[in-house]
């Protein structure tokens, strides 16, 4: 029903040349609980794909199956042209970073980073220079002699990243890598990880429940819910063209209006008739309209465009750079809308609760979902 085409082919296609990781038909049950059902996904070479969803949606299980830490009940995983579906973790090719860092507490930072290198029987000099290179890469060149317990959470996570990258794996897996950090460190580190990932062009899969993190870091986002993929798309597509009501609700704030389709590209919300950009709906069908708060235009001083609706400001919630403005539309049986307005606009137009205004709801910004 969506107007927007899916950017990724999610059918059982054979992997293309650009595909690095091909996941097909992955199903996993824990007893009666269906953790994953028929998951199909392709990840391109050098791409950063984020699995986003609420807790229990199966995103971490999918990551652990890709890593060979859990076993799928059915389905195949092809990495770089090699079928790894049944390989134990130790035979696969990836580096992994966990929320808990999982640094070995009794080994120095140097030994932690060198942990996987020592096992490959590389020369000592080679190991030394590789460790130095990696510590430089994550911005902690002088910390080799320290123990993990002496470092902050953000520093420990950088070390965990260095350790995961040390053996130059083809695939980097990040399991909620920023969730244990405080807000400021989280924002700083997500920029660093993204920059590093692009510089090394390492194919990366990250799991998170934080939509802001997903939007800011991903090449593509895979929104998951209840063991299924809801939508796959670039951050922009996910945000501005949510494919399902779940995605619309889960990613960003959104207004939802229940409506009845009418003929001529219009629909009825309570006693109001609104223009929508979607045509061809059977009149009388129940539909839902989704509209982002920042798409609502507020006109305080008479000069409103044609079709603007009268409304009253119910409240103004100050959030710093932005304000959330609650709007009561004039009419019977109509919902309260929330608009997101820059502070300067609120101040300039003198928006305050009780003020009567006119608002415009741009038809092209209204998503119609079933």
């Amino acid at each position: 029903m969506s107007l927007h085409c899916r950017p990724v082919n999610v059918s059982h296609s054979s992997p293309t040349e650009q595909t690095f990781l091909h996941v097909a038909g992955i199903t996993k049950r824990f007893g009666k609980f269906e953790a994953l059902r028929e998951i199909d996904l392709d990840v391109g070479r050098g791409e950063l794909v984020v699995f986003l969803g609420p807790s229990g949606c199966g995103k971490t299980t999918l990551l652990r199956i890709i890593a060979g830490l859990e076993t799928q009940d059915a389905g195949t995983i092809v990495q770089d042209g090699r079928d790894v579906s049944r390989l134990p973790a130790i035979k696969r090719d990836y580096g992994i970073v966990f929320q808990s860092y999982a640094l070995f507490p009794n080994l120095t930072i140097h030994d932690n980073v060198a942990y996987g290198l020592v096992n490959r029987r590389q020369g000592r000099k080679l190991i030394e220079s590789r460790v130095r290179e990696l510590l430089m890469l994550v911005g902690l060149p002088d910390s080799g002699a320290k123990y993990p317990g002496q470092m902050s959470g953000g520093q420990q996570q950088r070390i965990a990243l260095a350790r995961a990258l040390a053996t130059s794996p083809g695939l980097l897996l990040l399991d909620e890598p920023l969730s244990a950090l405080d807000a400021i460190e989280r924002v700083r580190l997500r920029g660093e990880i993204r920059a590093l990932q692009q510089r090394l062009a390492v194919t990366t899969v990250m799991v998170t429940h934080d939509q802001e993190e997903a939007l800011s870091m991903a090449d593509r986002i895979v929104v998951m819910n209840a063991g299924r993929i809801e939508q796959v798309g670039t951050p922009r597509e996910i945000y501005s063209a949510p494919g399902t009501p779940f995605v619309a609700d889960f990613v960003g704030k959104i207004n939802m209006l229940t409506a009845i389709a009418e003929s001529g590209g219009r629909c009825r919300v309570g006693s109001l008739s609104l223009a929508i950009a979607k045509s061809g709906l059977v009149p009388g069908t129940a539909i839902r309209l989704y509209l982002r708060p920042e798409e609502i235009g507020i006109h305080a001083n008479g000069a409103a465009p044609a079709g603007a609706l009268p409304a009253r400001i119910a409240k103004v919630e100050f959030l710093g750079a932005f304000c959330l403005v609650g709007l009561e539309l004039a009419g019977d049986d109509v919902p309260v809308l929330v608009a997101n307005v820059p502070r300067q606009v609120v101040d300039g137009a003198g928006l305050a609760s009780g003020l009567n205004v006119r608002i415009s709801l741009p038809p092209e910004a209204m998503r119609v979902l079933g």
Partner: protein
Amino acid sequence: MPTSASTLPAVPMPARLTLRAHWQDRLAQGLLLASCVALALFLLAPLAMILIKSVQDKDGVFVGLQQFREYLATPALKESIWNTLWVSTSVTLIVVPLAFVYAYALTRSCMRGKGALRVIALTPILAPSLLSAISFIQWFGTQGLLKFMLGGASIYGPIGIIMSAVYATFPHALMIVLTALLLSDGRLYEVAESLRTPTWRKFFTITLPGAKYGLVSAAMVVFSYTVSDFGIPKVIGGNFNILAIDIFKQVIGQQNFNKGAVVGLILLLPVLLAFIVDWSMQGRLHAQFSARAVPYVPKRSPWFDTSMFAYCCIVSLLLLLVLGMAIYTSFIKLWPYDKSFSLRHYTYGLIDAGVISSFFNSLEMALYVALFGTIFIFGVAYLLEKTRGMPLAKSALRLLAAMPMAVPGMVLGLGYILFFNHPDNPLNGMYHTMTILVLATIVHYYTSSHLTAVTALKALDNEFEAVSASLKVPFYKTFFRVTVPVCLPAILDIGRYLFVNAMVTISAVVFLYSPTTQLAAVAILNMDEAGEVGAAAAMATLIVVSSTLVCVAYALLTRFLLTRTQQWRVAHAS
């Protein structure tokens, strides 16, 4: 808008997919299975033999419950069930309040000397249970200094058993209650304070409920200990019959293994019951404790601190008087006639009489138990907690690891004779060897050590193994490079626990030793029986000294490790 995946009809599930096993997984799984087999062989099979023997007559013919009927029809034997229960209950009712007040003083007061008072209270653990019995005989026996205090009653009998058992079980109860009180959350008291709760109400609404499971657990441990202990009633029990003595009489005295098996099963019941109660409490004790709890910091209160200090001093003094009397007895010529200092009990009584060899046997056994026991127990706990797959074998192994706590030592020992002395058993060459003593002792003390290992392993990050696999490092390398070093304090603790207990154990080994593998605690029993009280006390003193040395060495080693090889831990704390 549904995805194409979810619109697909539900396809019939293909056969469950499994990962191709790596040889390292096979290695871990093989070790896991081998451990299962080992515990089945050295724990389950002997116990099964007791069950079989209890429903057979002497010629191995199945007689159903005939043996039980005969046993219960003997008034003297029936009486020993009742005796065992009331004596054990009395000991429990005396020890738990004593230990609770002591633990309360250590955690909730600001009295001085807490460190010393704690160490003194734990000293009975270092001594064989027989030591207290010998000491009480010296104090209250026919020639005793304090005989008049009993007012004509005899120390030989229930009074002596209860007093000696109180001494021997006090530290066990104290440690459990102490842990329960230490786990309490200081914030609860702060909230209560802010709500102006009176002290007595804080005690009944916060302290007591918080320590509830600990108290029940302590009671169960004390009860089981007293029910199962054989050394104390043997020395000080006189003609007072209890179950543990009955088994001994049936097996050693009358060579009636079938009757012994019957008594063993009866003895197993109360201990099993106590174990089940304790086990169900353990889970709740830990569930109650939140990781973010803030430790309680006591405030000064002169009257309360002084009275608590006085109480602890009196208890400590009494404990020291018991230990002191045994040591004193070993250094004088003959109590109470010739109290001049003498080493004759050591030189003549132990060395010249050749009994000293049993002390070296004990040392040898304790070292083997500590060494092999620690390796096996920690290894099994690691395989259980940190390797993947084999859920069935793991459940079986968890159950097997918990079982020894529910089995009295005498029952285990009896099972060992029945199983390993059986002519058809290919392993019967082990009977009467040092090996079987070591195995029986490891199994007997398995559960506590296993729990220590599991707790230490659970504290480690669960993803170490996953990270190692991603770095293609074999699991055993990570085991030796990370798991063992990080768990070293717990591993040493297990070793010390096994050593100290192996030095004093008697009930599990009393059926299993041979003249060449006689152990120190058994020698004490035999010397006491022969009237060589001085020499028996000298042997007990040697055990206390060697266990003390091991504990001191453990304390020094732990401190050394914390400051040297475990720099990271110190770094973490700073």
